[in-house]
């Protein structure tokens, strides 16, 4: 592949992965357009209070803030970088067959969130890096739709980004190391964290991490950070309980109490262990779901990762998962190769959309993706660069190993639907309950998930199945096994992540003409120098 002097690279998402991709692509000589819906780079991880808060010491809140700040400044000030904040990529358009290159980007530029009158643009580039991140995955339980029940990520975003404490008496529950920073942030803004509940048993977690977990975490750049959060919890005497979960939230118009219970390794409830606790807020996260709308719109192949097994030994895999009664799937992620290439030519992916491994690993992936996008993956001639790239790949691989262990240590137990009652809401938007879903699956027509959707409306509300999609898909699998979905007559094959529109667009905005953004990353003054 011959590589033109300055390849045009678009990076969608300016979180740890995207910012680092932009940085690497610039270093490799590309012109870069960096796009994010937020006002500032940083993504979910490097979040701080807005400029308008007039902060004098925002740094204190952040792990690795200084390095981030340096990278941010370098990228945004780079003459070959165009930074498009408050810009949503709302669609990707497949190129004409005769056209080599990634899909065309459709942008809504420079406007308040969901505001009318943002301007619509298109952008054509030589390579596209998708780094759009993930959101909390929350399993349903009775009462989870009550105000006062929110995701752990919501609590984190409000504490770090706005200095708002979501509650006064809070329980943090779910699974994964993310519960620790969330509890620490809540304490920082003055909430009382009554307890932190990890649904997996101590045995599952210990087995999952395997030998020398700290070493692994250190390689993945996570050890110091997690130890810091654990110390904060200890100082505030916040109990961290394993093998316990919030299995119900109750209250009149808002959450007033939660029921917690001890769980077995498969997340079934142990009789006689239910406890009621008065709270005003519950923050829940059972893991993360990658934001797959754009990768799917680009046509990227996904990997359905089998849930790792939790038995005493073994190498994981779907078979083991079934034997040990674990849930069948961890979910789908974007498939990438060594160079962070997706299955679509000139489309690269990095960060949490390729696997959940935290910010340091997202950064390493981003750097590799940025390099590959800018150079077509060629090996650099300069020995220094070659070494640097090797180091990046190594740290990316360590991140992947960390992600694997993370998934193994914090799996979702197969018996969680035991928490549900027939009236429990599964689709929050349409209030479809568990009973109706089961009934829909039980009918012959219900075996095509598109039909189940239409019968029950699950997944048809404003969020378009972003929240309930994976849950409904999993429940379906339980009822109907792994039988391939039979598409409903006249309808495209249903996919829990496929949405025609990745970000909301107003009709007025659609009606307005859209102008191409030409020559991204080029500013008149550097024309001669580059």
């Amino acid at each position: 592949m011959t590589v033109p002097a300055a390849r045009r690279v678009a990076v969608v998402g300016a979180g740890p992965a995207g910012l680092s991709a932009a940085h690497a692509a610039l270093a490799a000589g590309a012109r870069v357009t960096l796009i994010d819906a937020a006002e500032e780079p940083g993504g979910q991880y490097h979040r701080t209070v807005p400029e308008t808060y007039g902060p004098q010491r925002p740094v204190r809140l952040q792990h690795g803030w200084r390095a981030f700040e340096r990278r941010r400044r370098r990228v945004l000030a780079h003459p070959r970088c165009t930074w498009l904040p408050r810009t949503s990529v709302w669609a990707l358009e497949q190129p004409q067959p005769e056209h080599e290159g990634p899909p065309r980007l459709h942008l809504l530029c420079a406007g308040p969130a969901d505001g009318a009158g943002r301007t619509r643009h298109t952008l054509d580039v030589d390579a596209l890096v998708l780094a759009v991140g993930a959101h909390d995955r929350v399993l349903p339980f009775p009462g989870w739709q009550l105000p006062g029940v929110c995701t752990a990520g919501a609590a984190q975003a409000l504490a770090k980004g706005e200095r708002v404490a979501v509650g006064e008496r809070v329980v943090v529950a779910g699974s994964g190391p993310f519960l620790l920073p969330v509890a620490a942030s809540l304490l920082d803004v003055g909430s009382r964290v009554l307890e932190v509940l990890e649904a997996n048993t101590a045995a599952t977690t210990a087995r999952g991490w395997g030998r020398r977990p700290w070493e692994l975490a250190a390689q993945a750049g996570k050890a110091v950070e997690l130890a810091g959060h654990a110390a904060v919890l200890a100082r505030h005497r916040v109990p961290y309980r394993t093998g316990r979960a919030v299995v119900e939230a109750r209250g009149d118009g808002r959450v007033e109490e939660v029921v917690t219970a001890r769980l077995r390794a498969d997340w079934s409830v142990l009789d006689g262990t239910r406890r009621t606790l008065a709270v005003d807020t519950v923050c829940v996260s059972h893991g993360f779901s990658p934001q797959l709308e754009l990768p799917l719109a680009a046509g990227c192949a996904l990997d359905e990762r089998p849930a790792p097994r939790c038995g005493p030994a073994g190498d994981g895999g779907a078979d083991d998962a079934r034997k040990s009664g674990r849930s069948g799937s961890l979910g789908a992620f974007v498939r990438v190769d060594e160079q962070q290439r997706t299955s679509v030519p000139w489309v690269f992916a990095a960060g949490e959309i390729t696997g959940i491994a935290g910010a340091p690993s997202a950064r390493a992936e981003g750097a590799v993706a940025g390099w590959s996008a800018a150079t077509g993956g060629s090996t650099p001639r300069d020995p220094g660069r070659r070494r640097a790239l090797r180091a990046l790949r190594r740290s990316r691989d360590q991140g992947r190993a960390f992600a694997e262990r993370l998934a193994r240590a914090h799996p979702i137990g197969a018996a969680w639907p035991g928490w549900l009652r027939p009236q429990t809401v599964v689709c929050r938007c349409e209030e479809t309950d568990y009973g109706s879903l089961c009934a829909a699956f039980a009918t012959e027509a219900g075996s095509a998930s598109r039909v189940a959707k239409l019968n029950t409306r699950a997944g048809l509300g404003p969020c378009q199945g972003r929240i309930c999609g994976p849950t409904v898909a999993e429940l379906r699998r339980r009822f109907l096994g792994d039988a391939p979905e039979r598409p409903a007559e006249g309808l495209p094959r249903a996919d829990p992540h496929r949405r025609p529109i990745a970000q909301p667009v107003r009709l007025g905005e659609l009606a307005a003409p859209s102008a191409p953004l030409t020559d991204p990353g080029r500013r008149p003054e550097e024309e001669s120098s580059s």
Partner: protein
Amino acid sequence: MSPRLVPAQRDATGRRDRPLRVTVDGVPADGIAGQTLAGLMLASGRTSWRRAPSGAPRGLFCGIGVCFDCLVTVNGEPDVRACRRRAVDGDEVTTHSRAGHGDADGPGRTAREER
């Protein structure tokens, strides 16, 4: 009741607040520049501002623009995610109800159906 903004004098970020005022269904609510409407409403004592089709109250859930549980109307513009929109002094916020409105859905939905 429960959610609140850390008082500026106790906030380690050393912020300097610029107060602003919006109305929520005509009732004044105070906040500071930079807050999202969701943050402002929470900190001013509201935990819910939307009703699901059955009439059940809803408030903030995902906090990052994914779940659409926090939709409000702002200055006459419907279907704005309160967790994503920064408050502007004088904003008139009207709370949403999907109860009894058949299909008053989110902006994504509207656009999708139009295409």
